[in-house]
């Protein structure tokens, strides 16, 4: 169930990203702030029991995919293959970097 925390953190992440673009009242801005706080909190909680690099890699992947999907599905943002491709490549870079960096932190943890 620990990975459920990561998925839930990513859901709140998508919520606040939508809020940053579309919030227009005190209520929606409060929702955005709550989204930021919850996604942070859940992510921190998840990293206590799961490997940090992997958690962040999964979290960013879900967050970015969720954001792009919701702007297409909910807000009918026009989207072309070149843009999707570039976001995909960027995502590979972020996930790759986080997975590679994780090994290093674990080694350091071993030394300490």
């Amino acid at each position, binding site marked *: 169930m620990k990975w459920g925390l990561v998925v839930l953190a990513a859901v709140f992440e998508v919520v606040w*990203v*939508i809020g*940053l*673009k579309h919030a227009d009242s005190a209520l929606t801005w409060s929702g955005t702030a709550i989204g*930021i706080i919850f996604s942070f909190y859940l992510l921190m909680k998840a990293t206590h029991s799961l490997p940090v690099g992997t958690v962040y890699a999964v979290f*960013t992947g879900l*967050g*970015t995919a969720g*954001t*792009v999907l*919701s*702007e*297409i599905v909910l*807000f009918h*943002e026009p*989207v072309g293959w*070149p*843009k999707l491709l*570039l*976001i995909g*490549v*960027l*995502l*590979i*870079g*972020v996930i*790759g*970097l*986080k997975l*590679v*960096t994780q090994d*290093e932190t674990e080694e350091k943890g071993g030394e300490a």
Partner: protein
Amino acid sequence: MLHWISLLCAGCLEMAGVALMNQYAKEKSVKWVLLIIVGFAASFSLLSYAMETTPMGTAYAVWTGIGTAGGALIGILFYKEQKDAKRIFFIALILCSAVGLKILS
């Protein structure tokens, strides 16, 4: 263009926020907490401003990308973290696709 510059700054401030959180983990002091709050608040404000013209998905992807790539670059440059080919490759991948997204927009 102004929106992209603020997106760039937002990414850098996110990176600074994460660096400050690591600092706080080492030394629990109120000064770090205040800097963390200011850093993230500024980062989110600039991201929100950038989203006025940049589509949500693109802005978010570039913001996370700059935060991650920048964090790794700072680690390599200032904290003598390992600079193996894999890390450099992924950093380059992020920066190239961010530039590509800017050109496309």
